[in-house]
């Protein structure tokens, strides 16, 4: 093909300039002068300070069960289908049911537009979601069947995996799938010696533009609150050993903060769905 040398050709690939604007004002998350400064949204550092949560069940009428959850600007929608006939028959364990998870970001959910094709980040999240939810489900009651969990992130403002876990467990309860316990998720961003619980997207990704600093990283914990068991644990970044334990403890505390809200939403949904069974059943 003849090349027009008089014109400057555009590059093959282009990037949105907004991506290069730092989400937080330049500089490290914490200034040296004010190490205990409050966070951008007014919450406190190193405190179990979760964002206010809104949760509702049963919004997707087609699905067996569904839930919608908001925490700050993070918005997650989840629908549960099944138990239905298992598609894959090559599983070795036929006595228990299968849990199939799908996790997707809506294309407009992140600062940069995503594609509809599932990326590797979404596949990892789906895998993490599956592993966090499975210990909470009584899958042995559904032999040969599969339960499908679909999570769609409508708006990404940090701690997505944690809220997806909580939202998915609410949808599973709404669908009437038998569970040992609820599964609640909570995330944390370790920043030097202090931590930020339930971080926003800016807090999650902040610090990359700054100097390499010790002890930076993110932790996500999934907890079965009544049984006191940790069903999922994800940590990335570079953490000192003792801050891993401290972060897990803080996240568990954060999950317990969520528990009353989630519980109330589930009880409300159960009451709205059915009037109390008649006296004839009661003796």
């Amino acid at each position, binding site marked *: 093909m003849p090349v027009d040398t008089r014109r400057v050709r555009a590059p093959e690939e282009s990037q949105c300039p907004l991506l290069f604007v730092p989400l937080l004002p330049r500089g490290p998350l914490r200034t040296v002068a004010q190490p205990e400064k409050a966070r951008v949204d007014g919450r406190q550092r190193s405190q179990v300070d979760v964002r206010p949560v809104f949760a509702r069940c049963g919004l997707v009428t087609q699905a*067996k069960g569904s839930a919608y959850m908001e925490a700050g600007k993070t918005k997650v929608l989840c629908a549960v289908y*099944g*138990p*239905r*006939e298992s598609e894959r*028959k*090559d*599983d070795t364990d*036929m006595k228990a049911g299968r849990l199939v998870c799908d996790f997707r970001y809506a294309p407009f959910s992140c600062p940069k537009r995503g594609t509809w094709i599932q990326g590797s980040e979404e596949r990892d999240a789906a895998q993490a979601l599956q592993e966090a939810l499975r210990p*909470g489900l*009584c899958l042995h009651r*559904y*032999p*040969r*069947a599969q339960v499908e969990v679909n999570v769609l992130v409508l708006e990404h403002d940090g701690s997505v995996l944690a809220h997806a876990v909580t939202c998915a467990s609410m949808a599973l*309860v*709404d669908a*009437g*799938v*038998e*569970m*040992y*316990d*609820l599964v609640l998720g909570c995330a944390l961003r370790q920043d030097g010696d202090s931590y930020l619980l339930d971080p926003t997207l800016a807090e999650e990704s902040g610090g990359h533009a700054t100097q390499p600093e010790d002890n930076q990283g993110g932790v996500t914990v999934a907890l*079965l*609150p*009544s*049984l006191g068991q940790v069903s999922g644990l994800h940590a990335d970044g570079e953490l000192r050993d003792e801050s891993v334990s401290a972060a897990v403890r803080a996240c568990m505390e954060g999950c317990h903060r969520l528990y009353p809200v989630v*519980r109330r939403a*589930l*009880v409300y*949904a*159960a*009451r709205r*769905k*059915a009037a*109390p*069974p008649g*006296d004839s*059943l*009661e*003796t």
Partner: protein
Amino acid sequence: MSLLKLCVPGDRLCGAEDCIPGTGTYLRHGYIFASLAGYVLRKNEGEELPIISVVKETEAQLLPDVGAIVTCKVTSINPRFAKVHVLYVGSTPLKDNFRGTIRKEDVRATEKDKVEMYKSFRPGDIVLAKVISLGDVQSNYLLTTAENELGVVVAHNEAGIQMIPISWCEMQCPHTHVKEFRKVAPVQSEYLQA
């Protein structure tokens, strides 16, 4: 009515010595916990311990289980087996399709070697059957009709007219009086509403 308590999965309901765990509950470390979100019910039956269960608005998620009586529709047949879709478990309709198989040797209890599939079922028949196995990796649910009460309950002939059972192995068209072979089940009164 306000006394009825609502619970969510993971709630501890009572000790194992106080009640017998019913539907929507599970037993762990000597306590009974809820596994569903719904109302907590205690039901006394005789002098035994009350049964504690959790009820939801919809019937618990039923799946075909071994020993369950299911209502199914025949989708295809061949000389060795008939393929069916399970529609009901007991009297509860299923939301999703579950496929099952009735093998030739499971059609009736006696003279198994003389069974001919084409003389037992036709596609479209509604059949009462019992689950004998959940099947293995390759197969679907295995069903049987080898009992007196099990077999074809509703069948249509080629003209689409519903036929009337006249014996345990024959059905007749009320208009043309043409007889067709089926493995007929006398309809039991308890299943009539299903």
